[in-house]
Each structure stands twice: as structure tokens, then as C-alpha cells.
């Protein structure tokens, strides 16, 4: 099987500090890859490097076989990579509806933006996304009036509206209650039916809920890879990240 996203020997350097060193990662069609690792392991940096938010020092990123290393963020987005940021990165001064409208898949040129009509099909798609993320009642509220968890959903909804072939989610459940976290997990699973997903997560309960394959990052390098059980029983992982107590508690 061919990888949708393929990261080869990736190095990212921030003024002398090696944030990522020699990271390799393949993401296949329809797969959920969960990235875990202690703070500063380079999880967000990896996603940043994929979407060109941080410059790649050396190594390559391939998307459907095409080299996208250090290309313009908007080009990468248009090719079909959607990104949700760690802190909800949404438009607070706009309504939920407008946020989704902005993200909606389609032509993003100036001319099409000026002449664009809000068609039934577009509205339908927006309402669909809002229903799936439970935001339909807040459709015409300004995002600034929403709770933190709801803002997270707005951004997930934006990524959904983008309809990318691969979704990169950076801590989608941060600041959510247990119930909200669970609902988010179900949303992510439903997204996975038609998209590949890379998700960064801390919450082990949540990881277990959604995870198929886990990649453990540590000090900018891949430490271990495998299923939940494999990773949890990996001595290296236990040593640097999870700790015996966490493993026991989780098991």
C-alpha cells in the first residue's frame, strides 16, 4: 500500500536547537496515527514542518508521492492537507457559520471569492459539518462567545469543511470535559472513514479510544511505534514517557 503522507529523514532546527532529527513517518489511506510524547518531544513541530509552518532543514515530506517540502502553506492546504492547531485557531470575530464558510473546499482565488454565491449545496455542506460537530445551534453566534471546547469543535469543523485527504489534529481535546473528549473521539472516528488522520494527544484514555497505530516521539526522534499494547509494554517508552504508574493505571 502506498503512503498518503510520507516523511523521510526530517530535520528541523530552531537557531541551533535540533527540534526534529531524522524523523520518518508513513501515513496510509484511512489510517489514524496517534503521536504521543513528552512536552518538547517535537510533536507539534512535526505537524508544523509538514504544513510548512516551520522550515525543514533537511529531509523530505511527500504527499501522494509529490514532494511538498517547504512549499507555501496555502499550496499544501489546497493539495489536501488540513491542520488543526493546538490552541483553537479560529476567527473569534466571525460567526461559526462564516468560519466554516471560509474553510469550505473549493476555489480560493480572488475572482471566485468575489463572485462566489452561497449555494444550496454549500449551505448543505456547512450544516452537515455543523451537525456532525454539534454546533448547529451556535451557527450564527460569534465564535468569541463559545466555550473553549466548542471552539475546538469549530476548528475541527473547519478542517472537515476543507475536506482534505489527510487531517492533522494537534491536541483536539485540550480543555475539554470527559464527555466532550469522548464525543470528539467519536467525531474523529467518523472522519477516519473517509480521511487519513494524524493526531497528537496526551490523554491516554482518548488515545485508546481512537488509536490504531501509535508513534512515540522523544527528543525530536521516533522512539517507538506500534499498537497501544506494544507501545505500553515497550521498556524504552515506559522509561522516558509513560512511567510504570501511568502504564498500570491505564491498563
Amino acid at each position, binding site marked *: 500500500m502506498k503512503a498518503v503522507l510520507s516523511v523521510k529523514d526530517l530535520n528541523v532546527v530552531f537557531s541551533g536547537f535540533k527540534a526534529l532529527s531524522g524523523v520518518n513517518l508513513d501515513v496510509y489511506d484511512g489510517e489514524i496515527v496517534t503521536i504521543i510524547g513528552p512536552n518538547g518531544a517535537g510533536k507539534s513541530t512535526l505537524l508544523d514542518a509538514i*504544513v510548512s509552518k516551520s522550515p525543514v532543514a533537511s529531509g523530505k515530506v511527500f504527499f501522494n508521492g509529490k514532494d511538498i517540502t517547504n512549499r507555501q502553506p*496555502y499550496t499544501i492546504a489546497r493539495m489536501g492537507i488540513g491542520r488543526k492547531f493546538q490552541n483553537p485557531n479560529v*476567527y473569534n470575530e466571525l460567526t461559526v*457559520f462564516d468560519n466554516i464558510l471560509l474553510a469550505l473546499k473549493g476555489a480560493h482565488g480572488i475572482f471566485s471569492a468575489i463572485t462566489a454565491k*452561497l449555494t444550496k449545496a454549500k449551505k448543505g455542506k456547512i450544516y452537515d459539518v455543523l451537525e456532525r460537530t454539534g454546533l*448547529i445551534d451556535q451557527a450564527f453566534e460569534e465564535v468569541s462567545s463559545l466555550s473553549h471546547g466548542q471552539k475546538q469543535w469549530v476548528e475541527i469543523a473547519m478542517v472537515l469543511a476543507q475536506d482534505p485527504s489527510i487531517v492533522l489534529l494537534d491536541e483536539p481535546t485540550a480543555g475539554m470535559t470527559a464527555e466532550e473528549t469522548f464525543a470528539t473521539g467519536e467525531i474523529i472516528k467518523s472522519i477516519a472513514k473517509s480521511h487519513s488522520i494524524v493526531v497528537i494527544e496526551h490523554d491516554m484514555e482518548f488515545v485508546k479510544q481512537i488509536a490504531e497505530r501509535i508513534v512515540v516521539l522523544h527528543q525530536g526522534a521516533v522512539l517507538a511505534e506500534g499498537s497501544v499494547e506494544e507501545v505500553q509494554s515497550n521498556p524504552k517508552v515506559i522509561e522516558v514517557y509513560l512511567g510504570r504508574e501511568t502504564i498500570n493505571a491505564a491498563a
Partner: protein
Amino acid sequence: MSNVVLGYKQSSFPAKLAIISGISLLVFAVIPFFIGSFQLSLLSKLLLFGSLAVSLDLVWGFTGILSFAHGVFFTLGGYAAAYYLKLNLSAANNTYGGELPDFMVWNGLEVLPWFIAPLRYFPIAFLAMIGVPALFAYITGSFIFRSKVSGVYITIITLAISSALTTFFISQQAYTGGTNGITDVSRLSFFGTEIPPIGLYFLILAYTTFVMALSWWLTQSNFGLILRSINENENRIAFLGYDVAQYKIFIWTLSAALAGMAGGLFVPLNRFISPVYLAVAFGTQVVIWVAIGGRGTLVGPLAAAILLGQIQNSAERVTQDWQLVVGVLLLIVVLFIPNGLMSLVPKQLRLANLSKPKPLPGTVKAAETTTTEKAQTEVAQTEPARRSS
């Protein structure tokens, strides 16, 4: 999950907006028959300043790029018009009888420079009024917005552009008339007939209406939504697939073209153009109109330019220190009405709200029903899983 399905009412030109803009237009069309020639000329000028302020509002109010260079775009259009009007002085009116403008003779030029000569033809001059500022904006904009420069540094660059061009125009006396600029230009004629002041007023009113309509149309579209998003967080929108630099260069260039045409209409009214309008002081004045009127409101900057112009005019009659009066006024607005005068207008009457489609709980359209139903079944499927946890 609620069963409320929202309808989305959208009309291309809302009735309230049509009524309000119609009445305003009528007032401006009737006013000239009740005021003297001085007031007529002042109002014409203020409408142009208003158009200039609206052009800055597109760039600053909507997109978040604070520019002190809008006086420059205005003046570039103004010089194009000034060359045209100067070169079309009849030989009798021209001090030296020939085709060479007086200031060129004084500075020892013997032939009309090749880059100025074509401006004697109206179509070329007309294109130059729009094209020169637009091209200048496109080039500067491409450098500024494609580079990594952002925020306050862009503003500093616009200040530098304004200062540099002022110095340049003053230094090129033989071509630009130096500090005095281009004076004693002819009046604007239409096929040999001189356009009277009231005709010029209506021309300017038509242009102002055009600027307002175009700006409204652009900003209420998806394009306007994207501009506002760039204003709030330009980094995010790139990851949604938008080329932010392209949008900024476009609105920057368009805004410069609108400002340039205003400058082009300003010269037949003002009868001269000079580097005063290139300078930072004038650029600042445009910024003040937008700030006092209210950023991102379109109507605000236009109203502020007209109101402040009238206040300045009245204050000038009473005291020489009129700038003090305007200064105090600015302080009051900045301190007590930070969002500008338009924030005092009831929300329902603001342009943005008049043109915003209102959400209405309403009948479900066929296309929407199917998608919502699909969504609801999906939700229903996940429901048991939720309960079992």
C-alpha cells in the same frame, strides 16, 4: 442535538440599505442648488477626500494594513491629471505661448519629456490617473507582501514611501514643478465645453457613489470575509488554502487605483497639485478620517472626511489655530469613542448589518433536509456508543 434547521435569508441588495443609500444620494444631489459656490467647491473636495478615506478603509479597516501612503496614490493620480490639464492650456493662456508648461521653461527644458508628452491625450491621461498609482502600488505591494515583513513594519515602509516620493518630486523640479507643484492648470472640458463647477460636483458625486458601491459590493462578498480574516489572523487562513499575499496585493492595488482616480478629479477642482499631498502630514490626515469615522465601516470614513472638513473650515474662520480644534476633537474620539463615530450609530443601521444576510428559522429546503437527515442518522448511530460508556 437539536432539530432546529436554520434558513439563511440572502438578498443581493437589502431593501433598508437601498432606502438609506437612496435618500443619502438624493440629499447630496439636491444640496448644490441651495449652497454658494464656495460651499459647492468645498463639498466637492470633501467628497473626494471621503473617497480617498474609503479607499484606505478597504486596506486598513478591513484588511488591517495601516498605510500612510494613500496620499501618495492620490497625488500620483493628481499629477497625471495636472499634466493633462496643463498641456491642454490654450496657447493664449500659456505664459510662454508654446506647448511647454511654464515651470519646464523656467527650469531650462526645451522639449517636452517623452514620458509626459502622451498625457496630453485624455484617454492616456485617464488611464494614467488609475494606472500609475495602481502600478506603483502593485510593485511596492509585491515587495512588501511577498516578503516576511508584517504589522507595524509595513506601516513604517509606507511612511518611507511617502517621504521618499515627496523628496523625489521636489528634487525633480524641471519635470514636477518642485515644491510648487503644477499650478494654473486649465479647467476640465468636455468636447470643447468647459465643465461648470456644478457639473464637476456631480461628476465627483458619481465617482464617490461608485467607490462606495464597489467597496460595499466587495466587502459583503466572500472576498470581504477573507479580508476580515486576514485582518484577524492572517497566519490561519493560509492553512485553509488562501494565498494571503495575493489578496493583500490585490486590495492594495485596487485601493491605490481608487485613491488615484480621486486625486485625478481633485486637480480640476483644486486647480493645482503639489508635493504637499505626497507628504506624511496628508497621509496622516487620511488615517485620521478613517480612525474618527470608524474602521471597516465605509460610511464612517466618508462622513468623517466631510464633517472634519466642514469643522476645519468653520474653525479656520474663527481662529488660525484650527489644527488645535481638530487635534482636540481627535483626542476626544480616540479616548472616548475608540471605534469611531460609526460605533455611535445603532447597529441595525450600519452598512455591515444592513447587508448581512440574517439567519431565520424557516422552511427547510430540499437539499438541506437530506443533508441534515443524513447527519442526524449519523448522530443516532453514535448515540448508543456514547450511552454504553
